[in-house]
């Protein structure tokens, strides 16, 4: 990563205003934010602070009401829903608090999903999905349905799914919210490893300072604006510690 490289994420004066009948709800009120490739950023804030809306805008699930958003140098604020779907498919991986795996569908088929929509040949789908499951340590559970997996295992499958198309950006929305402390640590260790070894940019939304301490940068939100933006030395989560 050289200094001249442009940032992966570039938000300029981004506003997102929801119109609910008479009332206008400004979830984001002029956010300007740059995130370099390879960063591990935690977005903090109380509920209603706009951090989830930020994540949806970053993930191209939502579009800003005003302002510009450049992802990897490309303006994505004004794209159509199909173009945004293609960007989500290639550039972005999602990890959610409630795992969001397709029920009654094997771990392997869940991981294959982004490849299915990316038009990858079936044989290659299988191979890459297996590799992704192997990288999260779950290759031996590839035939299990989500209901047969523990919470931590389900979240690992979700991470494998997020990474299978080799995106530049991994967006995690409260990924440890449904996990116990030990499993949370395991998961953070996995995210740190992916960030360090594969250079994947991670943006993690959380309201727990403990979790945020594992990130190299913490952006705090309040009322739709950035309150603070601090760089820090991350705490190190080691998988062996947790185990």
């Amino acid at each position, binding site marked *: 990563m050289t200094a001249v490289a442009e940032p992966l994420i570039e938000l300029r004066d981004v506003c997102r205003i929801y119109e609910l009948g008479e009332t206008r709800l400004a979830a984001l009120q002029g956010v300007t934010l740059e995130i370099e490739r390879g960063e591990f950023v935690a977005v903090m804030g109380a509920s209603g602070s706009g951090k989830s809306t930020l994540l949806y805008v970053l993930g191209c699930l939502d579009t800003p009401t005003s302002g510009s958003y450049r992802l990897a140098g490309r303006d994505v604020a004004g794209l159509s829903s199909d173009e945004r779907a293609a960007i989500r498919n290639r550039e972005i991986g999602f990890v959610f608090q409630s795992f969001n*795996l397709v029920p009654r569908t094997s771990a392997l088929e869940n991981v294959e999903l982004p490849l299915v929509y990316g038009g990858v040949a079936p044989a290659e789908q299988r191979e890459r999905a297996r590799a992704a499951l192997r990288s999260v340590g779950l290759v031996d559970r590839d035939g299990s349905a989500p209901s047969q997996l523990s919470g931590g295992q389900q979240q690992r499958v979700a991470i494998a799914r997020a990474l299978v198309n080799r995106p530049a950006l991994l967006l995690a929305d409260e990924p440890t919210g449904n996990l116990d402390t030990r499993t949370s640590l395991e998961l953070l260790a996995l995210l740190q490893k992916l960030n360090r070894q594969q250079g994947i940019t991670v943006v993690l939304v959380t309201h727990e300072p403990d979790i945020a301490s594992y990130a190299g940068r913490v952006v705090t939100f309040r009322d739709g604006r950035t309150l603070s933006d601090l760089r820090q030395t991350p705490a190190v989560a080691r998988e062996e510690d947790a185990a």
Partner: protein
Amino acid sequence: MTARTALRALRRNKLRSALTMLGVVIGVGAVIVMVSIGQGASEAVRAQIQSLGTNLLMVVPGATTSAGVRSGAGGVSTLTREDAKAIAVECSAVSDVAWMKRQIGQVIQGERNWSTSIQGVSPGYFSVRDWSVEAGAVFGPRDEETANRVALLGKTVVDNLFGHGEDPIGATIRIKDVPFRVIGVLQRKGQTTWGQDQDDTVVIPFSTAERRVLGSQILGMVDLVFVSAARPEDVLVAVEQIGSLLRQRHRIAAGADDDFTVRSLNEMAIAQESASRVMAMLLLCVASISLLVGGIGIMNILLVSVTERTREIGIRMAVGAKRQHILLQFLVEAVVLSGAGGVIGVVLGIAAASAISMLAGWPTLISGVAVVGALLFSATVGIFFGFWPARRAAGLDPIAALRYE
């Protein structure tokens, strides 16, 4: 790709998929069964028309209505053999003519006796009625000229006069106490459309009947003239020609009642055929309604499925599914359900139709058009009723779908 996804989704919920399909299975099966019963019935009627003889017309003496006294058709004998011969010569639309004298009488063979219709006919009768012998031979012009005592038996008469395994050919029977030699057995013709057993008859030469058996005072009177028109489309022309010829021969003034009636045997049969066609259409309508209900069942299940799988749709959108992917997935699910239901329905329908014709003895006819039509219709039902739920799924907002509980 989307097809595979749709198939996986259907496999995930096998019982529901099977039950959804059941509506279409029953609908398509019902269509196949109904159509084959309907077509079997009209085919049977067609066969009956054939059995009456092609393009057959009948002339009977007496008017259907006559001034003052109403006498039924055949009540007064005014028709002669000469009339029949004149019809053959002078009516261009007529290809063949035969005449008949008939009476109910007792027939005796050995210990057995049977009351049947004794019919004295001209030699041309068998070709006009398109009737041949099963065994033996028909009589010819020589038998007519010499008034030979030879007889042909209908199957019903054979069954009643002869025991099992007895050969009627060459046997001697007594018709109204006059001995006859049996020279042939007529092929089974079955019932007429109005329920008369055509095989319950003994057929002898016309001259023999007139002079030796039925004993009429005036020679040359006939009870019935059979006319066959040259071609089916000539039937109406032939009716006209026969009518005007006989009015002229019988010197009937314009406006006066005819003393004869020309009847087309096909009329009744045609009426019955159109009745059976109406019946078939009705059955098809009922069956189509059940197919429609099956389609609504598919739509209902898919709508429930879209709601239930809102989150799944959100996940798919989040990982890069475009709207058309979601739309296609649900459409393919609908078409696979209805298409597979259609195939199973066709198979079951054909099986049921064969079972019905075997067990109930109804004639059925399975037509390729009905099979292809039912399959196409069921696929169309899938597209039609799948489209709305599919569009609803594709129109979901990904964020709302992901948050859906």
